[in-house]
């Protein structure tokens, strides 16, 4: 498991490391690890009851009541075209509430997201050919390489969360 080699948040290793670090919330999409900088995340919670919203693309799972705020829940696997659109959410899923400039949106994921601290230098800018190609690559900040050789795709939510971008259909 990649987990075992990661330095835990606030752990001794992190304190000892003098270099600049970044903290990510890491989650899985279609079996790959993705990360969002923790500054862009408002909270992580079990997904509340979702009300399906007609007249929205299938990757928008609906709206939920998150502590009195009504926010939209999207499925990034479908939004990025990694999975066929229109699947129902499983019985138990998790929501990462992400802050855009003037609204909050929920990303529904199937596995428990986890925090991770790593040196800022571990995030490499994505190769340019990648940035031009597919759906999710438009929103890449970079690729984080972990000591065990695994990688985390770091997303820049600010690029994804403009209202026109978020509603864009895959391709």
């Amino acid at each position: 498991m990649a987990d075992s080699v990661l330095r835990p948040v606030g752990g001794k290793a992190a304190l000892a490391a003098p270099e600049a670090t970044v903290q990510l919330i890491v989650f899985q999409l279609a079996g790959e690890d993705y990360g969002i900088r923790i500054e862009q995340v408002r909270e992580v919670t079990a997904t509340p009851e979702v009300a399906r919203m007609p007249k929205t693309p299938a990757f928008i799972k609906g709206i939920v009541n998150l502590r009195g705020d009504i926010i939209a829940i999207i499925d990034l696997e479908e939004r990025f075209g990694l999975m066929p659109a229109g699947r129902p959410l499983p019985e138990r899923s998790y929501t990462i509430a992400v802050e855009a400039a003037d609204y909050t949106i929920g990303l529904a994921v199937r596995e428990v997201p986890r925090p991770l601290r790593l040196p800022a230098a571990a995030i490499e800018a994505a190769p340019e050919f990648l940035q031009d190609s597919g759906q999710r690559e438009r929103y890449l900040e970079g690729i984080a390489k972990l000591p065990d050789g695994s990688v985390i795709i770091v997303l820049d939510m600010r690029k994804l969360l403009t209202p026109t971008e978020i509603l864009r259909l895959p391709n």
Partner: protein
Amino acid sequence: MTAREQEYREMFMAEALEYYEAMGRHLSELERSPADVPALNELFRLMHNLKSNARAMGHTAIGEVAHHLETIFGLIRDKEREFAGSLVPVIFTGLDALGAMIRAVGADQPLPDATDLLTNLDRLARGEEPVLPAPAEADGAPAEEDGRKMELSDLVYIQVRKLDKLLNLVGELVIDRDRILTLAEEIGHPALQATARHLFRISDDLQYSVMDVRLVGVGVLLNKFPRVVRDVATAEGKEVELTLSGQDVQIDRNVLQIITDALLHLVRNGVSHGLEAPAQRAAAGKPRVGQLRLSALTERDDVLIQIADDGAGIDTEVVRRKAVERGLTTAELAATLDEQAVWAFLFEPGFSTAAQVTDISGRGVGLDVVKRALDSLGGQLRIESVRGQGTAFTLVLPTSIAVKGALLVELDGRPYAVPLLHTDTVLALRPEEFSVAGGLLLAHVQGQAVPVVPLRELLHVEGAEPLPPADKSRLQGPQQVLVVNYNNRRLGLLVDHFLRQQSIVVKPLGKPLDTIDLFGGVTLLGSGQVCLVLDVPALTRLFVARRA
């Protein structure tokens, strides 16, 4: 003194003291840098407002001093005088005098005499030297000290935004309260039930108190119209007598704000299109002076604002013809419409029957602004018109925007709320009671054929594809029909069940979903469940655009 007069006086006092203090500040700035244009403009504006307020409240003495000072500031602004020399002490004396007069109003005492001051201000206005009192600094000191008394107002100014937040919080509190009450009943613990009932009473009081704080008299808007009517009448060569009534009717400040433009439009329209020219009136055997009545009254939980004229009335046939010309309907369909349905076209975007484009009303904006404002509030428009006798437009408005009556319906296991303002009637019909004509399912309600569409189809119709043609054979068992009403058009919606009627607090949909206009917002039910609020105007428009 009535409670209302008392309230007006307190408001006058609070504003006057605020102006007085601000003017003191700006005057000091002006003394430091006599070329300070913003300070001078601000002084001119504040003085003008104080003058208007004082005169409106009948404090002519204050109005007089303010008027004289405003004149001097005007002269300084026009570079005809300088803020220097003997003018400065006179102005400061003038401001002190205003302060003393305002305080006298507050203390219910006779206003101090200002004859000498006014004479001096007149001299300055004429370009003469003022007669300054002998330099008796010692004598002047006590009076001056009195003039510098610190004042704290009894009123607090609150930004409407803060009240909005308070109202939203109360709305959420009420939702949680209902939930606690439900849980307490389920658990059945007597002490918990008693506490829950107490919570219910307190939060009810709180809700009404917060709603009450936001209420203003409709008069604050209506009282602006005599001037508007005068200007429009002059420009159009009409003779109009405007009657106002119901200024004391209370309404949410934001509701009033939203309908301001709509009302302005209807009043202008009433003068320029509703009322005939004096000669035309005389020829028709009517008095030359047209009557325009602007009135407000409460009806149950709603506020009605009516604009009525005794003009020519709506020419239904002209509207019918124009609607066809503008492509709003087909000639065949237009011929079948009753006059209410035809009048509804007046409020479609871009519709105008005015042959001549006038300065006042024909500015490319139609009466559709009225409809838009009402839609955003969940209000309704009633039209009555008799040829040759006049037209009355009635705006039916909610007293408060926060809490709306709604009917909850269920579709595919999910609740949807429909604002009561747009619901007409509910029916349970057997399949054989429907008929099909032109691909449309029709129900017969009070002798009128009302088109019926499954709500499911309206909500799920994709892109620009038309609705599937009606097929009666698909109807199984009794059908639940909710008849909604928008712009005098009735539409039946097939739903699975009717749940109940309840008060809801509508929360707007946030980005990025606010572009989906079928929903007016969401509400949280007592169970914490999210419930979409259907927007009847948008549903009706969608139906008209997509019907097979």
